[in-house]
């Protein structure tokens, strides 16, 4: 058993820094806010490293199997003798890995933001929000209780909302933050209903008890799988709804529409929340409940697989046509999360079968490094160019050599070129898919090719293509970004290059036992060749400024336009809400309310007035009249019941 007190510090430090900066920072020490936030995160990161070391190498393993350890737990709200909401810390391979990822990336972002947000008057607000987000995200990953995860889930949603809308004077940022919040709230509704179903069936909210009850042959499992609703068991419904919540946060179809708009937030925020940490919460949630998905409800897992694969391909196609650099990266994020999802979806439980699970977590890990790096590089470029549009850039490789190299490393990593990190995780995912579902494998390969294409399209357009010409940028800065921004780039690039060499399966696997995955060279050849092909096409089209891409786009005009318009999903939602809900449902109801209901009420009011005016005459005030009415009523009853009714 680990002494739990210092593990508590991991989430509490950012929380304290949030309180400190949020309450006092703005008035008392606006200049020092960034340093306080960064230092607290650094401390959290160091403690996470210690915890990870202890867990993986000292206490986590019993008989070769990594245990789930409840390091800390307190009952927060007791519903009934069986069901309670707890707050606690659960240590297992994925939560410890997430602790590392979240604190590390968050720390990098904190450092980077010192340069990127320099001179912003509201920097204390920015850092307090960042701290709040980090606290919520850490609370989420260490949850012992499904309701605890839900609480932090919503907190994460709120901090994301706050950060997307950070530039609140920009209407588009405000709209984007609202959109993100509302869309994910819809998905969270599903999550909540799912939690209720699961807890109703298993009579617990605790993860470990819940997983145990719903995976072993118990009465709970029996009743959950036999109770059927529209052809699916209650368990499948519950898990699917929980997945819906995950799909909302992770921007899977059909809830993905908020993610590209969320790029209105400051770029470090995009890197932290909308690339590396929060958006993978959905994947993490499915992984957390993976035994239940895999053992008891394979239908629900199938849904996960297909949603993931389809989202992945869909986003990759859109990414090929976008011209806003951050939007390309946003769609690329969605596509990579799709990879993680379908890897979970095709995975089995335990042993070799569980390769997909390991691969998914591995990809989550490597993706966090290279995607954060990509965003930070993009941030550096945007910082220099003062534009998000790819067409405004070009030929930056001489002006920004460090950014250029780190960006290239990240591109190679995401594309899956050995020996960069993405290669190893992606290869495992594709291998898992190949053994389990050929259709999904095919979609994965196609997505991988598209990924290579759009990433290098981005790379070549930014750093090669036409020579850079600008009127104002060169007067403002000369070349490279400040050191606080470059340092995280270099560190992240280092990790993006080497993290693939970790024997990930040894530490993280579906059942806790070490999974030794061999590198299948013969299998890897095809994906790598396909990725190289994608790069080659991008090189041909975008290395030098030419009009081939334009011709190509014209040739494919219908499809290109559809993809450029993101397949009009936004417009579809808009049509449903405005066209159908407002016009076809809302307007008629409003009319009905105005004319029929109000009219009816007015009519009944005047009728009531008329009747009461008439019967008022009975109330004459004369006692002899009252006696007469009294007597008449008695006689009336007598007549009615003795002569008429019987």
């Amino acid at each position, binding site marked *: 058993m680990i002494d739990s007190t210092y593990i508590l510090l991991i989430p509490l430090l950012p929380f304290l820094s949030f309180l400190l900066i949020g309450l006092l920072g703005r008035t008392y020490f606006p200049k020092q806010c960034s340093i306080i936030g960064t230092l607290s995160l650094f401390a959290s990161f160091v403690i996470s490293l210690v915890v990870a070391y202890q867990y993986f190498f000292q206490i986590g393993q019993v008989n070769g199997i990594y245990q789930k350890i409840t390091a800390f737990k307190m009952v927060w709200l007791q519903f009934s003798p069986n069901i309670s909401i707890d707050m606690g810390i659960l240590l297992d391979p994925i939560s410890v890995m997430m602790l590392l990822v979240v604190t590390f990336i968050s720390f990098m972002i904190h450092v980077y933001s010192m340069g990127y947000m320099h001179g912003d008057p509201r920097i204390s607000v920015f850092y307090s929000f960042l701290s709040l987000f980090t606290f919520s995200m850490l609370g989420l990953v260490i949850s012992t209780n499904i309701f605890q995860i839900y609480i932090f889930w919503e907190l994460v949603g709120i901090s994301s909302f706050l950060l997307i809308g950070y530039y609140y004077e920009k209407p588009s940022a405000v709209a984007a933050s609202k959109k993100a919040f509302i869309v994910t709230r819809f998905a969270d509704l599903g999550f909540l209903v799912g939690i209720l179903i699961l807890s109703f069936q298993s009579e617990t909210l605790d993860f470990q008890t819940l997983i145990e009850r719903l995976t072993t042959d118990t009465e709970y499992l029996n009743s959950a799988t036999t109770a059927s609703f529209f052809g699916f068991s209650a368990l499948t419904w519950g898990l699917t709804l929980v997945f819906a919540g995950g799909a909302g946060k992770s921007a899977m179809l059909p809830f993905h529409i908020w993610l590209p708009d969320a790029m209105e937030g400051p770029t470090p925020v995009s890197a932290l929340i909308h690339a590396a940490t929060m958006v993978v919460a959905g994947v993490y949630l499915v992984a957390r409940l993976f035994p239940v998905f895999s053992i008891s409800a394979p239908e629900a897992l199938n849904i996960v697989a297909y949603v993931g694969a389809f989202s992945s391909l869909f986003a990759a196609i859109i990414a090929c046509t976008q011209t806003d650099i951050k939007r390309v990266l946003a769609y690329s994020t969605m596509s990579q999360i799709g990879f993680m999802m379908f890897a979970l979806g095709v995975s089995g439980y335990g042993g070799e079968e569980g390769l997909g699970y390991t691969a998914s977590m591995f990809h989550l890990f490597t993706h966090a490094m290279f995607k954060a790096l990509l965003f930070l590089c993009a941030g550096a470029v945007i910082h220099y160019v003062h534009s998000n549009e790819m067409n405004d850039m070009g030929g930056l490789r001489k002006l920004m050599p460090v950014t250029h190299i780190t960006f290239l490393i990240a591109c190679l990593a995401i594309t899956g070129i050995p020996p960069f990190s993405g290669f190893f995780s992606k290869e495992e995912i594709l291998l898992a898919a190949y053994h389990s579902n050929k259709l999904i494998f095919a979609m994965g390969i196609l997505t991988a090719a598209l990924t290579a294409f759009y990433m290098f399209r981005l790379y070549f357009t930014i750093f090669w293509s036409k020579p850079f010409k600008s009127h104002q940028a060169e007067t403002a800065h000369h070349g490279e970004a400040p050191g606080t921004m470059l340092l995280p780039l270099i560190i992240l690039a280092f990790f993006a290059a080497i993290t693939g060499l970790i024997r990930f399966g040894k530490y993280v696997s579906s059942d806790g036992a070490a999974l030794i995955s061999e590198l299948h060279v013969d299998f890897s050849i095809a994906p790598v060749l396909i990725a190289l092909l994608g790069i080659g096409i991008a090189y041909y089209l975008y290395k030098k400024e030419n009009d081939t891409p334009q011709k190509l786009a014209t040739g494919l005009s219908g499809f290109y336009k559809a993809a450029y318009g993101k397949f009009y999903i936004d417009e579809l939602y808009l049509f449903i809400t405005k066209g159908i809900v407002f016009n076809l449902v809302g307007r008629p109801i409003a009319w009905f309310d105005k004319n029929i209901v109000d009219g009816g009420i007015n009519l009944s009011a005047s009728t*009531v007035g008329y*009747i009461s005016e008439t019967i008022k005459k009975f109330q004459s005030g004369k*006692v002899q*009249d*009252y006696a007469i*009415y*009294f007597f008449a009523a008695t006689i009336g009853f*007598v007549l009615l*019941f003795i002569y008429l009714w*019987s």
Partner: protein
Amino acid sequence: MGIEFFILMKSEWALMLIIFILLIIKVNGTYQDNAKLLLFTNILLALNFMLGFVSNQSGMLFNSMFHTNSLIAFEKNILNFATLIISLQAYTWLKNHKHMLEYYMLLLTTLLGMFFMISSGNFLMFYLGLELSAIPLAALVNFDLDKLKSSEAAMKMVLLSAFASGIMLFGISMIYGTTGSLNFAELPALITGSHLQILTLIFIFTGFAFKLSVVPFHLWTADVYEGAPVSITAYLSVVSKAAIVFVLISTLSPLFAGLTTVWYNILFISIILTIIVGNLFAIRQQNIKRFLAFSSIAQVGFILLAISAGTALSNTAAIFFLIVYTLSNLGVFGVIALVSDETGKENIDDYKGFYKTNPALGWVIALSLFSLAGIPPTAGFFGKMFLITAGASKGSYILVGIAALNMVVSLYYYLKIVKTVFIDPNEEPIVPIKTNMYLKLSLGVCMIGIVITGFTSGLYDYIYLLFRL
């Protein structure tokens, strides 16, 4: 006899004792200070209320003329409670009144009559109790001797009450004629459903209906409520009605089981008329006491709805609602009594802008009216809900539908008053009124009661338990 004689009749003995103590004080004529005596009397009433909780036994006395059990003891204690609250609220009115002691003697005598009525095991005893409660009440209605309206109200009440009693007595004599018994224990087997017995049922019911102000026997209500002192109006609308409801519960369905269809149909018609007419009249009233008279007529219609189902559960709903009704109605009456005593204003329009000058009292009115209107989460909501559920259990969906519709209507007029109190502007609002300790205590008890009975189910469970004993 022996000790049992005192224990079984302890409520009655206690009341009589208080009446005699007050009588002796009056006859001695030595007291100087109303305020001290009021404190003393209220303490006596509070002790009387507490006594109602101890040593409640079941048993019969006087050849089954008088019977009691824990349910009856509970019912009597509800009346004790309501009387105590009314007495507390009458402080402002009585502190300078020269007939203060007579007020209490008459009031407690009517209460004694009601106790005998509730405990009766025989129609003779019942009739005696009824008359004992009716005649002093008429005197109370005329308590403000200098007010012409009060005298008129008392006159109407005495005459019509005599009229109703006459018809009821006629019905009782026919019961004896057809069955040869007046004993509640023997009657159920003897009432088989001849036409003459239907006639007796109707005659007896009209007597009850008069007391309960069931339409079309309600015409006296508004005039008397308006004419009587506010304290007595509150007593009429709460205590007097509750007593009759208790009797109705213990006689209608047990005694006339052989005539279930008939009394159900009578109730059916009465309920519809009562709820609708009560509401329609309530809407148009200008005087706040008349308004409460009619709205309480409508509330009685809801209580009858539960009684019509005739099961233990529905009777529980009726009694639970009566408690809620007592708390809510007395909340409003407490404020009205104070305003009437201090300023003499009794019109609804006078209450415009009342909240600005008397915020606390404004809230009391609002909460009480919310409860009367049945707005969640006040107790009134649950009371109405139980009543409607009880009515629905009988399967009488027409009744339930009409009742539900009328709940909406009542919502309108109750909230209209809340709007008057809170929103409407007024050039000359009622001046800020200083409340006294007694009133604060009584209103506090009512408000806490409204909130607590709304949030806990203990009371309801307890009443249900009493019914199943």
